[in-house]
């Protein structure tokens, strides 16, 4: 197949960027989207032109490195699929494909399609853990965890921190990411001691960098792991409770 790419090129952080057009003939439908970019880069390289910088690593949808805006959709047109698992057969022969980096103030572009997502790590630093120093753990079966709870925590924990939720959000909000991280731990019995402190810390850190949620639901559609916006509601509830809770009575619930 033959496609035409319109790709955002930007030399470095803060440098001006522009959409550039590349002709991409002889593309196989079996290729993944990133393999198509590999081929385009190979051709650019042989013409002595700088290849397009983009991030990718595991190419099986779990590391969260890849991610780009493809034709106005985060990770492209296939639902529940990261860019690396998107295949060219989802595009039509002769199609024009627009590729842009994630855009948000918190995700400055480093080069071409590569953005800096370290703000996510800052949110995790602010409380996205359970304090359990090495060696201090009780037996794993000491705490019973109902299957539904473990499953819900796992649903939240499936987040790969790719940033698609932020990129897809008209407000550049990171609610889906933060709520997934918060709820992974807040739903579990092990996470209860730090539950309210965690949600306060993480939401406050989030709001330093990102916008607010207006419940469009775009994030949920863009999420390659199909994480539900239900978690945003749970996070909101925990945040309000955290503001009011007398923490001295925490173990009386």
């Amino acid at each position: 197949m033959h496609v035409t790419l319109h790709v955002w090129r930007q030399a470095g952080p803060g440098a001006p960027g522009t959409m550039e057009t590349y002709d991409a003939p002889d593309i196989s439908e079996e290729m993944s989207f990133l393999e198509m970019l590999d081929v385009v880069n190979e051709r650019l390289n042989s013409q002595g032109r700088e290849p397009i910088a983009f991030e990718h690593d595991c190419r099986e949808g779990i590391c969260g490195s890849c991610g780009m805006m493809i034709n106005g959709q985060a990770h492209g047109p296939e639902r529940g699929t990261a860019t690396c698992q998107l295949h060219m057969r989802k595009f039509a022969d002769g199609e024009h494909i627009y590729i842009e980096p994630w855009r948000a103030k918190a995700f400055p572009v480093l080069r071409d399609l590569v953005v800096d997502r370290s703000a996510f790590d800052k949110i995790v630093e602010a409380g996205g853990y359970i304090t359990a120093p090495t060696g201090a753990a009780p037996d794993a079966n000491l705490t019973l965890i109902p299957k539904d709870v473990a499953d819900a925590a796992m649903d939240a924990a499936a987040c790969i921190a790719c940033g698609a939720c932020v990129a897809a959000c008209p407000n550049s909000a990171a609610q889906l990411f933060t709520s997934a991280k918060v709820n992974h731990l807040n739903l579990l019995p092990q996470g209860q001691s730090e539950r309210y402190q965690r949600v306060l810390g993480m939401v406050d850190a989030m709001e330093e960098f990102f916008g607010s949620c207006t419940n469009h639901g775009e994030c949920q559609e863009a999420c390659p792991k199909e994480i539900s916006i239900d978690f945003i509601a749970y996070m909101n509830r925990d945040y309000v409770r955290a503001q009011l809770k007398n923490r001295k009575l925490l173990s009386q619930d």
Partner: protein
Amino acid sequence: MIGELTGNVPTGPLADAWTQHKFDMKLVAPNNRRKFDVIIVGSGLAGASAAATLGEQGYNVKVFTYHDSPRRAHSIAAQGGINAAKNYKSDGDSVQRLFYDTVKGGDFRSREANVHRLAEVSVDIIDQMVAQGVPFAREYGGLLDNRSFGGAQVSRTFYARGQTGQQLLLGAYQQMMKQVQLGTVELHTRSEMLDLVVKDDRACGIIVRDLVTGAVTRHSAHAVLLCTGGYGNVFYLSTNAMYSNASATWRAHRRGALFANPCFTQIHPTCIPASDDFQSKLTLMSESLRNDGRIWVPTDADDTRSPDQIPEAERDYFLERKYPSFGNLVPRDVASRNAKAVVDEGRGVGPLKNGVYLDFAAAIERVGVHVIKERYDNLFQMYERITDEDPYKVPMRIYPAVHYTMGGLWVDYHLMSNVPGLFVLGEANFSDHGANRLGASALMQGLADGYFVISYTLANYLADLLGTPAVPVDDPVFAHAQATVDDQVKRFLSIGGTQSVDHYHRELGKIMWDYCGMARNRTGLEKALSEIPALREEFWKNVRVLGDGPMNQSLERAGRVADFFELGELMVRDALEREESCGGHFREESQTPDGEALRDDHRFAHVSAWESGGPGGTPTLHREPLTFDNVHLTQRSYK
């Protein structure tokens, strides 16, 4: 000059060895720990767990990762699970049994004491990770669920859906991020280690390139921990992540660290075959599929009918035919080699005739489509996403792919390499899996090293250095190492050839796969030994690395591929030298009349540890003999 290699293995009864040894080792008092700087390279399971633990204990830790976030390390991609001798199912598991299974599974090429320690601490790992909030699968009663894995006769594998590696890594990462927030761990993302600095035969720091700014910086410490994973990407096509590379370990090797058993690579039988020449990596499908799928190819190599048109009589269920008792559930290496054999006969299936069928039709008929859906639906969906074929209707096509590397930098019982102060953890070391790793044991080893071994053995090393400041970064050894790095960068940018880095990587991968892949023989290996240097020479003359900015992905890859060339050559050399078949290493010259792997314990019950011969030089082989006092050496058979 390196003398005789000893593993620093404690003496005395194996079952108490680690406990006694922990008591015998020296300690660093809490108030003295802050006087020690520790560098950790890599933030996967081993690196993150070590960083968290050492940070909690009070050391000054610096973590370096080339990813944008520590959470992206390739540990995240592990699917199946993690083994632990918890015996929650009361089905006869024990530390002793996990120890035995691991030594036997490794085809008797690992150190008994290391493996026993691994089995002991496996129990603590599960406790630790549950406390960290890892949402392992639960039964309805709320207790942890287990499944069996890879031929083990007990259920000892803990899992979190098909994302166990991800969940464990997030646990360790989060624990580390708490230390980052507290200031005990300093995190350097997008920072690639490009050289090890050694002074007076001790590791004293690293040289790092910032992948965003291009700045090359020096970092000094009392000890350096390499937790940088395996080298499967030497084959170009593997199930490893695209960035996975061997540069950290290889450059440490060039600075004197021994590289052990490089030819021990593991092939995973159930991966999706390549679809075209532009294939960039291979995707693994969980081994559990072999529980219900039947593997076959057409009897006639020229059969071009679609699989549903081929009658039973014209199908060859080759595993069931050759191994009636284990059938489709033979171990990874046996399944892989047999698939390769039928594809080499020209009986492969698919457009490129490069796979075999894994057929679920019989299972669907037997238990119903809903049961199959319950068991494998996410895998089937993933398969369909990649191939556009519905495995409920059309048989899957699978083919083996490189998956894990058992070899790595040589370490002693303390996980310290022969360069004092240089420790190697996780897949990066050669340690515990011998010649073949059991399923669900990689995660176990990474976390064992990082959580429960290194903090003891590192203290033992550092205790003697109390009062010694770290080597200052303006020392000439640092300047020299940095110059080496700078020179290489300049050299790449000035070659101005015509071919891309990927082109050479692909070519190298082909040589490695053809001659040093699933089955190896002297002729092929000797051929590889002449082709690799020739290709490497061409690479250094004709590679084209463009660069107008500090962030330069081609430049990053060029350095990694340059190291793969040297490592690939050493792998071939090692494979050539080891004239036996064991685990992942199959020498066609050494097989039983039935075509099974034939070990030669008399000549090869040792670790092959290679010393770098320097640029253009020939490496020197050192042998660490392996003794087996607690297990009986047997020949594997799966008939």
